[in-house]
């Protein structure tokens, strides 16, 4: 699999802080990358940008939140910066692509290497939608751990604010957060449940003074952008549902539930429940995360 197969004609640029095109935001940080290899576009200096980061092992809820925030913010003209990792990172970037916006990926390996390989479609889509792929290490460098730790400062450096979706107590996401704080960027954390290990990191951040993020409007407000008509509320309008659908929807939660527990809560047999769940899915109210597991969609 080579980049030619994804047919895009991107020149690779090597930028140093002396170049005109070098992002102004990166010049401002204390240790800007001496060379920045770029495929595609860089976020323009006048474009508001936000980093969406989080655990690689996010829950379905976390992925949904990341994707929703990515979509809503990108549709308002905010550039989404992230690391194209599995989990929350790529969910946020896919969201940005859903919203028709631009998204920029800072890789920990050379930009000729798609890491993780499973994200190669994302890789292609980012470039196709006039976003950019960039890295400070040479083109064909393999993904080495230390490079990932230091690329995190570029992610936060390129962004005006950092959104932390989900993070474990001691996680790599917090490296980015530390970099952001060093650079004086605002950090927003999505609150979670007390006992959820993937929320521990976020709750800790909130305790230490991070902004609590409850809706995309918080970010737009911070960036001095007005929301223009788009339904930003995370609550769905359930008035269109019939009573049966409504009762099943009420049982669903943001975390995926197994069909067996939905059955016991709704007191309906599989034969009746399956069509209702499928109707909800068609209407966009729920999704089947894997065989037998259903959750409420944001």
């Amino acid at each position, binding site marked *: 699999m080579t980049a030619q197969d994804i047919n895009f004609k991107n020149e690779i640029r090597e930028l140093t802080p002396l170049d005109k095109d070098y992002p102004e935001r990166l010049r401002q940080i204390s240790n800007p990358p001496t060379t920045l290899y770029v495929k595609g576009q860089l976020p323009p200096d006048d474009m508001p940008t936000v980093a969406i980061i989080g655990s690689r092992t996010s829950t*379905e809820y976390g992925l949904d939140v990341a994707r929703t925030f990515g979509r809503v913010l990108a549709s308002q003209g905010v550039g989404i910066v992230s690391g194209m990792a599995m989990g929350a990172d790529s969910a946020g970037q896919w969201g940005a692509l859903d919203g028709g916006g631009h998204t920029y990926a800072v890789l920990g390996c050379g930009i000729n290497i798609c890491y993780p390989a499973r994200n190669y479609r994302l890789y292609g889509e980012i470039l196709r939608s006039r976003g950019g792929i960039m890295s400070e290490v040479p083109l064909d460098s393999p993904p*080495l751990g230390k490079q990932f730790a230091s690329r995190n400062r570029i992610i936060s450096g390129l962004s005006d604010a950092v959104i932390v979706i989900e993070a474990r107590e001691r996680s790599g996401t917090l490296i980015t957060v530390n970099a952001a704080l060093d650079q004086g960027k605002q950090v927003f954390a999505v609150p979670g449940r007390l006992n959820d290990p993937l929320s521990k990191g976020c709750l800790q951040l909130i305790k230490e003074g991070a902004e609590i993020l409850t809706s995309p409007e918080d970010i737009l407000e911070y960036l001095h952008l007005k929301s223009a008509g788009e339904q930003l509320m995370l609550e769905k309008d359930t008035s269109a549902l019939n009573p049966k659908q409504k009762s099943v929807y009420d049982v669903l939660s943001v975390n995926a539930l197994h069909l067996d527990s939905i059955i016991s809560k709704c007191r309906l047999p*599989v034969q009746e429940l399956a069509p209702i769940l499928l109707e909800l899915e068609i209407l966009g109210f729920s999704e089947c995360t894997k065989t037998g597991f259903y959750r409420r969609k944001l």
Partner: protein
Amino acid sequence: MLSKIHSAGLSGMDGFPVTVEVDESDGLPKSVIVGNVSASVRESLERCQVALRNVNIIIPPKRLTINLAPADRRKDGTHYDLAIVTGILKSIFLDDASFIDDYGFVGELGLDGKVRHVNGILPMVAEMKRAGLKGAVVPKTDIQEALVVEEMDIVGVEDLPDLCRILAKEESFTDYPRDTPRVSTRHESYNVDFSDIHGQSFSVRAALIAAAGGHNLLLSGVAGSGKTMIARRIPTILPELSREENIEITKIYSIAGLLPEGSALMNRRPFRTPHHTITTPALVGGSSNSGVIPGEIALASRGVLFLDELPLFSKSSIEALRQPLEEKQVTINRLNGSFRYPANCMLVAAMNPCPCGYYPDRSKCHCTESQIRHYQRGISKPILERIDLCVEASPISFREATSKDSSVSSAELREKVHKAREVQRMRFKDSPHLLVNADMNSRDIEQFCPLNRQSRSFIEKIFELKSMSMRTFHKVLKVSRTIADLEDSPEISITHLSEAVSYRGLEDQLYGSMEEALSNPDPNDRSRGTNSISISENKEPKVRGCNE
């Protein structure tokens, strides 16, 4: 004096007639055995001679030539002993014992003269009947098994003196006590029942559908959620064995030497659970030192082959199941012939969702996405393609496990399965290649699973929403046909379709569009240059604390 004794040999599932010819002549005392025989048959001569001596029958010093005809076929096994010893006795002592010409002889001899059990009595006696013999002389321990073949006069002998007694005179042969036939064809009850399972209504329902339509089933779920329990109970809801099926199963078990001692028929649908370290020949059958023996897939025929921890099975052994599952029989080709066994079984597989077994519960599961994927990709795509139903067993709570309500018994479920099978039998009465819905190919699906306009537009929507492949679509149709049959509904409705969609397999998840694109890059897009990305998924970054 020359004597001829009838016997039978085994080749795969079927027997073939063998005639043991013994010639006694003057000359230097010497015994030879000819006729393309294996070492175990050659040894038979020693056993016969020693056994005769040990029961005080003295063979005069003569030249004995023993031929097993047809001489061009390889003969193996120890069951020719009885025919050979009878031939020796007849050629030397019993010139006029023509009354045994209508009987076949099978059995192994001990040095003390006892006649021992041999494997494969049922297929051999069946072959004797086909060859036109009136009866068979078998070891006493195997009488019940031999009696399964109807209209055959079965004589059981315990030892050589017994044999001599019946050979002495025609009257003594006809007067020798035969055991009265006590062959039972009753459906033996199982010692497990579906009512043992509490909760898990989704998986139980899937098991019901799988049994009704003969579909293969994949159960996924955390450790201890009862996957094995459910699988073990599937034979209890399959329709009762017909006599033909019963005989077929018994033949295989008889050849494999797995028939319980003294029993006539198996009477139960088999449930086989090979361990995941099983080798390919053990799974599909292969040569052993006692000839070609049936593998697990043949032993599971008419029952359930349960593969626990499916991703851990070696790829080659799983791949070897592909063709037998499709053709419902397995052919083992060896230098000395090809052997065919039935492999008409239902495949039930179980797997954990991830290496630690807790996914998607992220508060317990720390497996990375690629680990999970790697684990799940241990299942080969061709096998997934043969599995119509996939379910996720939910982790069971204490309350569910201890509650007494909402469990259904095997008898109830079997009744439903029986009805659904009946509907299928009526539907497929003009298409002999089809027995159950699972057998339908794409053309049959078009014929037997018509959709009305409403259902068609509904499934079209789902098709796009779920980005299904055509193969998955066909599976959904087959399963929905079975669901409709369970309700005795001639038409497939939206309800049936949407339930079928919820049993959709892992296939699209694991081997979806991305993989196809990876393996078949569009040739038009190829151009040369430095501007290339290479894919590397193998290495995880090694520094701790940078896991985004």
